[in-house]
């Protein structure tokens, strides 16, 4: 636009906040030392020291930063800070995160002698904790799970401070923290402690695609009563509970309340939600990618069952090879390396938006068989764009709001941030009868806008 809008330097952070950030930095440094130190006892101390510093630093910073201002929308300088506007800090963060995923997935496997490649020292520093929780030594996935859960809890603490004025946000944040800690971390650990299969009760097919593969199902069925229940749970949640819950509450019951990927996005990813691309071009990519991925995983599952039903004669090794490639391309590269690694560049829901087959499945249900919608309050919208800005799914929310239309989009995860951020109280997440669900406000005429196609 016409006049150059010079952005002056940012106001300096208060000393106490800097101190808290220094604590976080020291924690990261201690983590590096834990990685470098081959002595298991010392390594353990470095690691616990690091976790203590990270915890203290993050929570103290959040309290100081958000607590010093009255409760309310706090977005000052969001697009002027390098860390949240694709500046140098963001690129470095992204590089570190992607690097971590690459190392974790491909350079930290067990070599058969209890040695875990690059991350070895960190893994062994967790042995004592892992024994206490799971009655077995740590491995790279336990390390990952610990970090992941910690990220959800600490950044969840930050989100609770930041959004303390909105009960919807507070309850929702507590929910994702609870499900990550309880269902995705402690419970699987305890199951292993009692020699039961490691099972995640908050992940379902087609996101956790192998839960309905014949291989997983048969091995669970063989592992006793609890295994049978797990198969039952997985099938019921995927095929029955998902449509029913989505009918009543929309996709949000899962994506922004229960899911672990969503949980990380809503907490650790919250500083990056504004980065999700709102353009029509991005929407077209979304449609091109997410539905084919759903189709692939449905077809793959069906083929594997056909193969299984024909006494493992139909496909030869092709099915397993397909599953392996899907696991590599979608399960690892897309959901991990790109999905989380690029948070600071592409926004916090890249995976959920472009890749997740569960999101595609829930989205189809939400769009066509649900009572959920985001209502628009008459003609109050001033087209300011705050709602679109915070939409992590890249929905250009204002396009609907300024036309007085309800927002019914397959991708909306119901995080509620658009409603929270709107300065005019225009948006409200509601479940209601399906009749009249698409009805626009009579106060506004439709315009000739074309959003897609």
């Amino acid at each position, binding site marked *: *636009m*016409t*006049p*150059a*809008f*010079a952005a*002056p*330097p940012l*106001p300096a952070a208060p000393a106490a906040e800097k101190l808290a950030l220094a604590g976080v930095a020291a924690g990261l440094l201690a983590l590096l030392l834990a990685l470098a130190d081959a002595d298991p006892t010392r390594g353990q101390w470095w690691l616990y020291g690091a976790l203590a510093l990270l915890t203290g630093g993050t929570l103290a910073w959040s309290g100081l930063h958000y607590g010093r201002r*009255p*409760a*309310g*929308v706090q*977005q*000052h*300088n*969001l*697009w*002027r*800070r390098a860390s949240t506007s694709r500046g140098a800090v963001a690129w470095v963060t992204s590089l570190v995160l992607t690097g971590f995923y690459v190392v974790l997935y491909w350079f930290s496997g067990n070599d058969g002698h209890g040695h875990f490649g690059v991350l070895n020292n960190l893994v062994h520093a967790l042995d004592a904790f892992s024994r206490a929780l799971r009655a077995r030594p740590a491995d790279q996935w336990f390390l990952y799970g610990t970090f992941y859960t910690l990220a959800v809890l600490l950044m969840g603490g930050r989100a609770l401070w930041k959004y303390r004025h*909105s*009960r*919807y946000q507070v309850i929702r944040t507590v929910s994702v923290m609870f499900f990550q800690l309880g269902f995705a971390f402690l419970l699987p650990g305890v199951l292993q402690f009692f020699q039961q299969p490691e099972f995640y009760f908050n992940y379902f097919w087609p996101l956790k695609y192998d839960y309905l593969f014949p291989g997983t199902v048969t091995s669970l069925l063989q592992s006793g009563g609890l295994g049978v229940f797990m198969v039952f749970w997985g099938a019921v949640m995927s095929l029955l509970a998902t449509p029913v819950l989505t009918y009543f509450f929309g996709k949000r019951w899962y994506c922004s309340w229960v899911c672990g990927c969503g949980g990380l996005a809503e907490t650790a990813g919250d500083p990056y939600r504004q980065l999700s691309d709102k*353009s*029509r071009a991005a929407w077209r990519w979304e449609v091109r990618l997410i539905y084919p991925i759903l189709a692939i995983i449905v077809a793959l599952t069906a083929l594997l069952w056909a193969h299984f039903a024909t006494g493992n004669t139909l496909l030869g090794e092709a099915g397993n090879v397909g599953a392996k490639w899907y696991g590599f391309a979608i399960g690892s590269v897309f959901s991990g390396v790109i999905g989380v690694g690029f948070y600071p560049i592409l926004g916090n829901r890249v995976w959920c938006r472009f890749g997740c087959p569960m999101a595609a499945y829930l989205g189809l249900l939400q769009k066509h068989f649900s009572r959920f919608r985001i*209502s628009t*309050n*008459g*003609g*109050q919208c*001033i*087209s*300011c*764009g*705050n709602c679109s*800005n915070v939409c992590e799914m890249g929905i250009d929310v204002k396009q609907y709001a*300024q036309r007085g239309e309800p927002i019914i989009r397959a991708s909306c995860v119901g995080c*509620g941030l658009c*409603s*929270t951020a709107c*300065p*005019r*109280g225009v948006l*409200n997440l*509601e*479940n*209601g*009868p399906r*009749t*009249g669900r698409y009805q626009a*406000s*009579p*106060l*506004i*005429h*439709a*315009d*000739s*806008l*074309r959003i897609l196609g």
Partner: protein
Amino acid sequence: MHLVIVGNGITGVSCALAVRRLRPDARITLVSAESAHHYSRTALMYVYMGHLRLSDIKPYEDWFWDENRLGLVHATATALNTRENRLTLDNGTTLAYDQLLLATGSQSTRYGWPGQHLAGVQSLYGLPDLAAMARDTHAITRGVVVGGGLIGAELAEMLHSRGIEAVVLVRDARYWASVLPPEEANLVDAQFEANQIQVRYRTELGEILGDAQGRVRAVRTTAGEEIPCQWVGLATGVAPNLALANTADVETDRGILVDEYLRTSVPNVYAAGDCAQHRRPAAGEVAIEQLWYTGRMQGETVAHTLCGQPTPYRRGVWFNSAKFFNLEYQTYGQAPAQPGAELSSFYWEHPAGRAALRIYFRAASPQAVVGFNALGLRLRQAVCEAWIRQRAPVATVLAQLGAANFDPEFFPQHEQAIVAAFNRQFPEQRVVLRQRKGLLARLTS
């Protein structure tokens, strides 16, 4: 038909979109001086505060204009020749029209204070103002804002976001006294206090003092107090931009005079939005409306007339909304600061001062509800409007209050407390709350 629209604000753009819908074959050209593409003026403050980027406050992506065949000319129209149906542009070209819409918006008013042209003194209306404010408030410690209205509060919030001390001069005894009753104004004042904004009520600007370099160094109030500062924001209102209209024989007063079809005194020339002044406003309505939604409605209305479906402008039930720091404000219908004898009002305030609701109703039976003020809670516009149109008695409205609740899920519901307060203030009524919150409740009522 070639329709030329001067001004790509919400009024001009709303008209262009409606004409495109009604007449797919029309040729439409938008001429605007300020920006190549339409942007949301109401969002300027969020750009300053770093919540949004300039590109985020464009309501439509750039491809939109081409795809909908809306021609954009980024230039100033310097002269209008209504005999030859021609505009002269500052880029040396002319533009012929069949129909012309003037949607030139407003400009900030200044009252001729001594020193008002010093560097560091400005208003906030458009993009150049935003750029100036970003530049001139850089590294300063204190700014003075003149004016106790919406823009005054916005400017204070903007300064505050950058850690700049803000002093607000308000002529009246309370904030926005022409619109808000004292209780509501008090809640806004509490927001100022919570954010350390110093508000000087009953204080008027006398003069602005400069330093040797011609930059503002202080203001002096009419009471003689000198307040040192490095920047002054004048938020004392806007007036219709008549510059182009005055180059032709288009009749103007304070604004460009229009009839109810938004026609000016000259054939084929129309005016709408901030710049238009209604010759005969409906009873109780103002002649010049300077709001986002009225601009949109006027733009859409005039589009119908332009397309051969003459449509008088009917604003409908008044509404508006704003946000003062963390306090949201909505108003519907008649909600005067000082209701006359024919109106009563019921006021409820949350004990912690976080929310308030005022309902205005006719004093005479059946006490029909005429308006609402809501602070810190969200009301459903369609429901409030229906009540006002249907002249619902206040007792009915209170009994069904939940139907108007537009707060997010899990938010505290105040209906019980509100009805209890009403029953205390108007014991002769004894309302029982029958309807709680919910979409289901609304749709099945």
